[in-house]
């Protein structure tokens, strides 16, 4: 509960609308109240008068417009050419029951993968692996996620979004299910439910809008392939300035890697972020940000082998703290991306983990301290060289450092009992080309030289399709 106090305090303040006359004398309050009542009456009178005037204007417009249209039709005798498509008058409105249906969109994705290494052995060397999500996925043809999104305003105060991903293995993930306030004002937006954390740049972007078929290595290693999701609340504040400055905080249950679901009432995943952005001339826009995430985990298990090659289950219990610095720059001639666009994007992350490492949970069950300081970054550039065609290159680099393992320090076990944690510098280079016949269909070919494993290089070739049907998607920056 102690952890909740500042957040609750901030929320309360927000909801109360910053009462800056909190210490005023009772007389002042009465005076203010009277003034407010007078102001209210005045405004409602004005609004009524204006509404009447608008009605009058509208009827005038309609009246004046009818003869004008008739006159111009009469004076310009030749009729306009009939349009090519089968256009007609506005269709008669049908049932009102469907009028408030949420906007529905469906994204279909799938791929063909050719990999020189067995994807079951994929591992980013030197890093405690997440439960799932590392690596390029299975070989041959794969149905990727089919994403279903429903969005709508709930009422004048809230917007709601549900994004469910039906996976190729027939399971369903609720990726996002959140509400967002529309009426707080003062640049404040409160989000609650399940949502992608605003930590970093790429984390909030759904996979079908990525510029490569897979995530950067640093995201896979630090956030576990699936995006960093929060079950919790997020508060953002946008500064009232001409440039873009946004500050935000999140508190969540720590459901996803690097946190774990814990049997505790306290919050297990806190994040703070700041974003700054703007334009340089007509053609260039940019955004940069700094984020900090702290996640707690209890018995975050992973599979390894011991010094004799026997499979063991180890587990980490403790705290991860991750810093992210991100930057994105987009250039297009006069800001129009129809024919050419260039996009440069990079993120650097640094993570420290402190806690306990359990060795061979189901057998010897030895426990000792654990501390690591690890980092990774990626940089990618995408260029639309002719209309509908884009090419891109990405470079990933990771540095595991040498973790401090208590059981090794005390001499209880040799370092070779933790082969996954042996110091490594995984890297990967990826080339991409994609072709978008319209805003709603995209086909991509991708080739990667992946040195994430300490042992062998994986040459990965991927073909991917992404199709969007239903409501028009958002052009997020």
């Amino acid at each position: 509960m102690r952890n909740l106090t500042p957040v609750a305090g901030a929320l309360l303040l927000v909801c109360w609308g910053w009462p800056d006359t909190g210490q005023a004398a009772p007389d002042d309050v009465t005076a203010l109240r009277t003034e407010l009542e007078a102001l209210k009456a005045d405004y409602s009178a004005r609004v009524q008068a204006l509404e009447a005037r608008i009605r009058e204007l509208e009827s005038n417009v309609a009246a004046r417009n009818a003869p004008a249209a008739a006159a111009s039709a009469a004076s310009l005798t030749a009729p306009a050419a009939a349009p090519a498509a089968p256009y007609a008058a506005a269709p008669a409105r049908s049932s009102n029951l469907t009028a408030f249906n949420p906007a529905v969109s469906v994204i279909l994705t799938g791929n063909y993968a050719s990999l020189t290494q067995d994807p079951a052995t994929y591992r980013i060397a030197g890093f405690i692996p997440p439960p799932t999500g590392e690596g390029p996925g299975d070989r041959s043809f794969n149905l990727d996620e089919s994403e279903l999104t429903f969005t709508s305003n709930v009422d004048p105060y809230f917007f709601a979004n549900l994004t469910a991903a039906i996976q190729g293995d027939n399971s369903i993930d609720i990726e996002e299910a959140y509400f967002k306030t529309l009426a707080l004002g003062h640049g404040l937006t409160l989000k609650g439910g399940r949502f992608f954390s605003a930590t970093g740049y790429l984390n909030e972007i759904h996979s079908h809008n990525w510029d490569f078929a897979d995530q950067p290595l640093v995201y896979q290693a630090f956030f576990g392939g699936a995006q960093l999701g929060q079950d919790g609340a997020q508060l953002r504040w946008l500064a009232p300035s001409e440039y873009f400055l946004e500050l935000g905080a999140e508190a969540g249950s720590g459901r996803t890697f690097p946190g774990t679901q814990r049997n505790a009432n306290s919050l297990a995943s806190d994040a703070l972020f700041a974003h700054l952005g703007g334009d340089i001339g007509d053609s260039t826009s940019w955004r940069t940000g700094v984020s900090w995430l702290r996640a707690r985990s209890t018995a975050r298990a992973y599979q390894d082998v011991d010094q004799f090659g026997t499979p063991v289950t180890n587990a980490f219990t403790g705290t991860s703290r991750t810093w992210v610095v991100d930057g994105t720059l987009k250039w297009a001639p006069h800001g129009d991306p129809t024919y050419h666009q260039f996009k440069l994007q990079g993120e650097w992350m640094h993570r420290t983990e402190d806690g306990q490492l359990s060795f061979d949970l189901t057998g010897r069950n030895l426990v000792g301290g654990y501390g690591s300081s690890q980092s990774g970054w990626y940089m990618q550039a995408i260029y639309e060289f002719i209309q509908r065609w884009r090419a891109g290159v990405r470079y990933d680099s990771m540095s595991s450092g040498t973790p401090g393992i208590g059981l090794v320090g005390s001499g209880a076990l040799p370092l070779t009992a933790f082969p996954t944690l042996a110091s490594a510098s995984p890297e990967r280079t990826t080339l991409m080309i994609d072709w978008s016949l319209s805003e709603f269909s995209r086909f991509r070919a991708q080739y990667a030289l992946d040195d994430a494993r300490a042992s062998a290089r994986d040459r990965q070739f991927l073909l991917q399709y992404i199709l969007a049907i239903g409501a028009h998607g958002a052009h997020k920056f």
Partner: protein
Amino acid sequence: MPRHLRFLSLVLPVLCAGVPAAQAALKVLATTPDWGSLVTELGGDKVNVYTATSPFQDVHRVDAKPSLVARARSADLVVATGADLEIGWMPVLLQDSGNSRIQPGAPGYFEAAPLVPLLEVPSAVDRSMGDIHPLGNPHVTLDAHNIAIIAKALSARLALVDPANAAYYAARGEDFQKRWQQATLKWEAEAAPLRGLPVVVIHRDQAYLCHWLAIRELASIEPKPGVPPSAGYLAELVTKLTATPPKMILRNAYNDPRAAEWLAERIHVPVVLLPYTVGGTPEAKDLFGLFDDTLKRLLAANQ
């Protein structure tokens, strides 16, 4: 204890309290240069207009970029085209703005297209028909009668969101209507020779101009809205247009000139560059200039 959270809970209220009250000019975010120009005409020095797009941008393809979110944050009034033209970015902008005054339904959100009779309202929609707009063609500005209707409603809206200056907006609105009516009569008289003029367009964004002046659109270079022409389709166009030649091909400032020029060479007609929006040509400095220059260029090519 999360020190960072505690710090934030102390700092956020202070930052929020520092929000300056918008006592000065009314802050207006206009999606296109046309609406920016119209707001300036109607609001004079009582408004501070920021235009989200340039004349050389396809308004549909804009990102909800940080600078626009920042402008939406402080806007007292958003003036948009509507009819789904800004569908890719306006909803994101409104949601991310943290600004309750400009949400749809609030007085601070104004859409122009729904006020005028829309052309080309499809009887059925399907994405196989290209970037089709279910509500009708949203490129409404190039019919002078539409501007008059939209200006009236916009004057009333300015008065509603800024009641202190209602009389000022009413006076400017009346003055604008007077000048616009005179100009419209002049343009319609000048445009008489353009009646029935056969033209080829690129995208269907000249529909209102053609409808207004009774210009005949023989064909469009895009086979379907938003779909670039294939070589086969262009060859078909050459055959078709050699049989029934247009007088000219119309191109907007933001269009890629190549397809139009390729076609022009083969069917031996000129490509006429039109400003399409305020700022599209150096002469189209404001809405009056936009219409003056559009007509001047059409008439010159029709000589």
